[in-house]
């Protein structure tokens, strides 16, 4: 696929003797939403963390929009990270800064925007997730779901071309999961390219263009959601889905 925004070839990550990601190929085109599911410890989080080099891959290549990132190339990495936003399981808002300061810090410090412009952008983004009135609040004043919505728009403030979500709802209490998923659905509708690691099968079914099933550091099966959930081909996928869907 030549028009792929993200192209991963034979990606490997080893921790000591243990290889956690064991040769993954994946192409993601502009505007595509890819949801990665799989059992705990299957390497899906490690995989997604390799995509913006929070983990340095042990082997293989990641090409994002024509920029190849192979292990140890710091400059390519720098350029790449600015185009890739990431949302973590535990929000990771900076606790000593207001919501507004959290959102404007990176765009201003990296010279992407002037402060006034960054603040205007931040307010617009907060509006979209219904949190404009919390611009001056500190993270400790927000619920988990609110914090995660801020974390999402903080990443969007950098105007990324690709958004990575690493189990964004796993740490939330059930009541606020819906708010966060709605924001992500909205984002998908607007055409953002997204890779989402999640246990939310409902979200995968509804929003994903393609669902990727991970096990033992490998892609076992990848297909559109109706196909993967209704007629999975691999025995391992069938077994996993039988367990999570009851």
């Amino acid at each position, binding site marked *: 696929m030549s028009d792929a925004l993200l192209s991963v070839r034979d990606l490997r990550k080893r921790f000591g003797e243990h290889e956690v990601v064991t040769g993954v190929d994946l192409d993601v085109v502009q505007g595509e939403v890819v949801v990665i599911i799989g059992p705990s410890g299957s390497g899906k989080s490690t995989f997604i963390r390799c995509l*913006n080099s*929070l983990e340095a891959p042990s082997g293989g290549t990641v090409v994002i929009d024509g920029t190849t990132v192979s292990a140890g190339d710091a400059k390519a990495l*720098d350029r790449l*990270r*600015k185009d*890739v*936003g*990431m949302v*973590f399981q*535990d929000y*990771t*808002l*900076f*606790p*000593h*800064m*207001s919501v507004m300061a959290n959102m404007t*810090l*990176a765009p201003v*410090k*990296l010279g992407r925007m002037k402060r006034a412009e960054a603040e205007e952008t931040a307010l617009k983004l907060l509006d979209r997730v219904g949190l404009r009135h919390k611009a001056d609040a*500190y*993270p*400790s*004043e927000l619920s988990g779901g609110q914090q995660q919505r801020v974390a999402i728009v*903080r*990443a969007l403030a*950098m105007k990324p071309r690709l958004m990575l979500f690493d189990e964004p709802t796993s740490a939330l209490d059930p009541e606020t999961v819906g708010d966060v998923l709605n924001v992500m659905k909205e984002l998908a509708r607007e055409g953002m390219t997204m890779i989402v690691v999640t246990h939310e099968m409902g979200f995968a079914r509804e929003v994903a263009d393609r669902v990727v099933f991970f096990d033992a550091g490998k892609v076992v099966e990848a297909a559109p959601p109706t196909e993967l959930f209704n007629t999975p081909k691999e025995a391992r996928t069938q077994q996993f889905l039988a367990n999570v869907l009851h």
Partner: protein
Amino acid sequence: MDFDVNYLIEQWPALLDGVLMTLQVSLLAIGFSLLIGVVGGAIRLFRLPLLSQIVVLYVELIRNTPILVQLFFIFYGLPAVGLGLSLYWSGVLCLSLWAGAYQIENIRGGLATVERGMLEASRALSLRPTQYFCLIALPIAVRTSLPASLNTAISLLKNSSYLQAIGLAELTFVAVDRIATDFRAIEMFSAICVIYLSLVAVLALLTGRLSAYLQRPFQHQ
């Protein structure tokens, strides 16, 4: 035995000179020692090769030798290898190096409490390591390490009285010097005890203000 208050009033100008010297030297040294603490703490945090080992060696050396020996080493020892400093700067250097070693440990302790997620979030936002350290890690760490840093600053202020041993005219030197001629030991030592207590109280008060300010974002938890 009587306590002559008038004597103290009479000696006040001399005592005030001593206080001012103590304050000058201490405040400068508190500033320098915090600087040493931040730089040393960063070196330890990022585990910079070689520099990290040097910092460890420095901290151990300072913490395991008497401050008086360190002072004599600077004032009497260094001139022998052509590094002579004035009385004043010998005093500032000694206190800065002494407290700096403790501030490194204080700030390192604070940095250790900063969650790993903060570093990852900073990296995901493309912030540079120096931006992460100055804008994220250090402000979070300072809040945690403030009580320990204040203790070190208070110890520094009290330890400034060692500087009388090399003849710097700070508060204790003034008192001892007066006693040698006037034999009013109880008055003088009472007076400087009260003065030291007051200086420490002011320092603690200012730190309390700073602490309350840093606590603002967290008061809802």
